[in-house]
């Protein structure tokens, strides 16, 4: 290839000299003949499309890599993959520069200097590096398995990594959800049952609250990008109205039919404002609330349910007396009653009474959204919900409520868990949960184990584990790395009796992800040994890793992963497009290596045994637990166990296995028998109140228990306690060009957004003497400790942001990759972790008060 290109200058001159006759090409013996590639003899000329999956984002879009004579020349969307339908986002296309990035790790590395500062490394062989990690695993397992933590950045091959490997080595697993959307997951699991947050039934919805939905840049329930915008664009052509609720317009972009620039951290109040109007107007779905929620359950004055023989009671209108919820003919939603001399009211009535203080006028002062707008949107929701209407789907007549919300990242605020409960409450009142055109949580309706588990948490006395699970601090707990950092720094304060020693960090970069960077660095520096698995030397590795193992990117087998677009049942597998470059290895290989060296590969309870279970391998494809398999063979067994006769060849050939559309009877919770699998959605969270009382009894501070209320209750966020000169609220957001902290150095996308920036309204900027492009200091303030953090960044003036809000994207702040130098600071340098800046479920808030001054 290059020889042809290098020769062209000479050829051009030759062509010029001979009169520019390109037509001369093809003459035997003429040097110009080499211009025509088709005439260049190749040993085995090939031009093929090899399927794989994007490994950057979390929706694992299908990719066809074009390989010419064995060399990957471009990446195209796989038309067969339901999630991306033959298309790719900018980073999906641009990751070809990651594949060939000469700055990828080139061998395992072993640290030669002290931790806490930029790493100095010596290259090591795989055998030595794996041996060092395995020795640590073996040592710590022999002493106390609780001292071993495995933390991941993204969800890939969960059965293999999160389940089988973690079980085999007995590690405690940490994900990244606590800084993403987990508070929303917990709210949905607890309130509705399925695992996820909220998304619309796009094929049928007519009205969507794009609540903090960064339509044009990122996110959406469970998927990182392409699928939802495709469905949104199609729905808008059918007349969908989009109401964007976000302090910043840019996320919804041109897709916003109406922009509601809400004050950050007040979404809970806005949701209750909508509910206030719905209740006041009586535009509620009484049948849904009565039959499928705990709204009719009678609540006593102490906030707990009235029970008889262990069963929750409702007020039976026919009998004029309480009756078991499953025996009453005509349960009441409203009213005040007396039972056994005790005042009782249905949970719905309790909610209605609670909403009295959330009239639009009151909510307007909290949220900054005009009262008329709040009332109008609530009434538009009610009008579009067509309460009582039905629609025929797959031969089933189902409730039709074409109003919905996308609210995935709304949980990244201090009241996140309850804010999501409040939003869900709006759609419960409208009966739009799992109805045709309504809000959905997952691809199909399945009640997750957490529906029960989060209702039955047994709060323990200390000692606690370092993640404070089942503790008086975070009884509902998303397992937060920043909580871990805090308990590692001060275990005594939290009644933690053991401090983890060994960390395996899998494609995660917590120093750039969580607030605050200082907390994460100091806390994680307490690990005695840190192993990192990553294609690049991450910033976390730079500061605290002992051993780094180079992972492959698209050059590996990995999975299985979901491929559903939330209407189609599909599964995919990442297949290698070439041999691993730079001496890297696929993670499945790495874990097989580690397990073998740590003595946990073979036998009962070993990695192979766990793989048999986690992958559901069936005879005759069950792994022999005494022989190490090839990775390809492992996936072949999985595919065949799934009923694919052709095994892994299906994925090597097609990349994805599309099983067909989900039928309505599995898709809609309403269509299940019984509807919603027989559970009652929790409008009223009685167990939350129980947790509050247990927490108080066990001596927890108010800061921990105050948001454990049975109904979502507004309070001012902690950040509001910062002094008035911290006059702006900083929020963070994501860019379509990047994903997490591992793409800003891909040259093709880095070129598109090469610098960190602070978005600020021109009115605010003018008042502070700041012009577009000026460098500014952004200083954040911790309202409880007074701690401040500051960074210097370039100001960008945009009208589409509230004047009292400034915004910064994530993704930046990397320093180990040469191409990322000078891009500017990480947003995580300004946020805080710990009390006041995380939710009551231990999830990260990305909101903080700042002051901005010209640098």
């Amino acid at each position, binding site marked *: 290839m*290059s020889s042809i*290109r290098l020769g062209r200058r000479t050829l051009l001159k030759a*062509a010029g000299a001979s009169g520019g006759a*390109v037509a001369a090409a093809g003459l035997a013996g003429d040097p110009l003949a080499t211009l025509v*590639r088709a005439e260049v003899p190749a040993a085995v000329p090939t031009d093929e499309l090899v399927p794989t999956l994007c490994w950057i984002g979390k929706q694992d879009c299908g990719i066809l890599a074009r390989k010419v004579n064995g060399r990957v020349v*471009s*990446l195209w969307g796989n038309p067969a993959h339901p999630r991306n339908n033959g298309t790719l986002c900018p980073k999906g296309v641009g990751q070809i*520069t990651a594949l060939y990035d000469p700055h990828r790790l080139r061998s395992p590395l072993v640290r030669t200097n002290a931790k806490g500062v930029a790493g100095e490394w010596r290259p090591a062989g795989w055998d030595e590096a794996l041996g060092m990690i395995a020795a640590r695993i073996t040592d710590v397992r022999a002493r106390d398995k609780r001292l071993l933590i495995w933390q991941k950045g993204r969800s890939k091959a969960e059965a293999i990594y999160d389940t089988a490997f973690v079980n085999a080595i007995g590690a405690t697993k940490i994900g990244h959800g606590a800084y993403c959307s987990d508070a929303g997951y917990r709210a949905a699991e607890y309130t509705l049952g399925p695992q996820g947050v909220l998304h619309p039934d796009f094929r049928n919805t007519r009205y969507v609250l794009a609540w903090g939905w960064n339509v044009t840049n990122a996110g959406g329930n469970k998927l990182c990008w392409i699928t939802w915008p495709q469905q949104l664009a199609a729905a808008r052509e059918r007349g969908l109205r989009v109401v964007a609720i976000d302090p910043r317009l840019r996320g919804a972009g041109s897709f916003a039919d109406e922009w509601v620039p809400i004050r950050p951290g007040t979404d809970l109040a806005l949701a209750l404002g909508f509910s206030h109007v719905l209740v006041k107007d009586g535009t509620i779905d009484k049948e849904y609330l009565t039959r499928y929620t705990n709204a009719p359950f009678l609540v006593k004055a102490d906030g707990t349910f009235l029970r008889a023989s262990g069963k929750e009671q409702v007020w039976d209108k026919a009998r004029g007396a309480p009756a078991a919820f499953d025996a009453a003919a005509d349960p009441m939603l409203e009213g005040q009653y007396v039972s056994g001399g005790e005042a009782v009211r249905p949970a719905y009535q309790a909610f209605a009474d609670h909403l009295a203080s959330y009239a639009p006028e009151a909510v307007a002062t909290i949220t900054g959204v005009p009262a008329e707008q709040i009332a109008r949107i609530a009434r538009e929701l009610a009008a579009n919900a067509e309460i009582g209407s039905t629609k025929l789907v797959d031969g089933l007549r189902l409730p039709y409520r074409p109003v919905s919300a996308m609210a995935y990242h709304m949980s990244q605020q201090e009241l996140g868990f309850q804010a999501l409960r409040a939003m869900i409450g709006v759609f419960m009142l409208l009966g739009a949960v799992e109805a045709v055109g309504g809000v959905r949580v997952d691809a199909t309706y399945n009640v997750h184990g957490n529906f029960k588990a989060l209702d039955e948490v047994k709060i323990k006395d200390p000692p606690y584990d370092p993640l404070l699970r089942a503790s008086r601090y975070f009884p509902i707990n998303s397992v937060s790395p920043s909580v871990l950092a805090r308990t590692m720094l001060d275990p005594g304060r939290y009644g933690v009796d053991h401090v983890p020693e060994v960390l395996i960090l899998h494609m995660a970069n917590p120093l750039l992800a969580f607030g605050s960077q200082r907390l994460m660095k100091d806390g994680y520096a307490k690990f005695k040994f840190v192993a990192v698995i990553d294609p690049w030397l991450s910033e976390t590795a730079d500061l605290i890793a002992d051993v780094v193992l180079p992972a492959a990117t698209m050059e590996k087998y990995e999975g299985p992963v979901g491929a559903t677009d939330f209407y189609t049942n599909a599964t995919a597998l990442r297949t290698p497009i070439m041999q691993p470059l730079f001496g890297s290895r696929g993670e499945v290989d790495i874990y097989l290596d580690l397990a073998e060296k740590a003595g946990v590969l073979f036998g009962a309870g070993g990695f192979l045994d766990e793989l048999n279970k986690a992958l559901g391998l069936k005879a005759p494809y069950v792994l022999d637990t005494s022989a190490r398999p090839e990775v390809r063979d492992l996936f072949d067994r999985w595919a065949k166990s799934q009923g694919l006769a052709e095994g892994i060849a299906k994925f090597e050939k097609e990349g994805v296995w599309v099983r067909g559309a989900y039928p309505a009877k599995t898709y809609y919770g309403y269509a299940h028998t019984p509807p919603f699998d027989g559970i009652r959605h929790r409008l009223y969270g009685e167990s939350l109140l129980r947790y509050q009382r247990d927490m108080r009894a066990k001596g927890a501070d108010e800061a921990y228990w105050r948001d454990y209320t049975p109904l979502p209750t507004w309070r001012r966020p902690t950040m509001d306690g910062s002094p008035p000169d911290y006059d702006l609220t900083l929020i963070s957001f994501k860019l379509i060009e990047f994903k997490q902290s591992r793409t800003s150095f891909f*040259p093709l996308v880095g070129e598109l957004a090469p610098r960190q920036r602070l978005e600020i309204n021109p009115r605010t900027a003018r008042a502070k003497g700041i012009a577009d492009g000026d460098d500014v200091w952004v200083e954040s303030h911790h309202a409880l400790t007074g701690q401040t953090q500051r960074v210097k960044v370039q100001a960008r003036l945009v*009208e589409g942001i509230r004047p009292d809000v400034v915004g910064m994207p994530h993704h930046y702040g990397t320093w180990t990759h040469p191409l990322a130098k000078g891009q500017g600071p990480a947003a995580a340098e300004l946020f805080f972790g710990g009390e006041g800046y995380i939710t009551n479920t231990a999830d990260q808030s990305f909101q903080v008060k700042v002051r901005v001054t010209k640098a």
Partner: protein
Amino acid sequence: MTRYGMVIDLDRCTGCRACMVACKVENNTPVANLWMYVFRFEEGTYPDVRVNFMPRPCMHCDNAPCVKVCPVGARFKRADGLVATDYERCIGCRYCEVACPYGVNFFNWKEPAKSQYLDGKDATVASVTGGAVPPYDNPDLDAPYGTERRRIAGGGQLKGVVEKCTFCVQRVEAGRLPACVTSCPVQALVFGDLDDPKSAASQRLESKRSFRLLEELGTRPRVHYVGGRPPTAESRQIEAVRAKV
């Protein structure tokens, strides 16, 4: 006869710029040469603000100013509607760049090896790429195309020539869609034979009110926009890409 054109649906574009990256990979264009560009605009003042997106490839004008000013016939209009550049003829005078009202021409300032995104000479990379520059070098770009059999595909191959969007001539002649069109996550870009009323492009063009950029100049662009609205003097560009050479 087949006369190609592009229809860009502004109601669908999310401004993601995947088309810009797909173009660069397919056409191997050098650093900072953005044949496809996606504007992100903001209009109005808080809280009455609108955000709009507008992809802008070469307009492949039927009355192309760049063709008229080219002193050596390097820039030419093809019968199928494409405006092409013969890199063998281009003398780098940049008249086309000045004449074009759309700003879609890019001058190659550097040798290919110095203008690409990755170090293709890295030994490990070269061991699998044969030292191609860039490592994802597209072999289709070397062939001559069209009835004229001229070298008009791809970019970054020669220092001192002017390049622009070719509508991915190497793909179109092979019966495929331009890279930007194929990659677009929301099918905002539609390419096809505008002389054929049944083509997807013609159908999309007919579906909504349309406009063309700077139509008043008489350039007769073959790129049509549907949905959305044309940028105005009030449109402010946000998130501009000011790539450094």
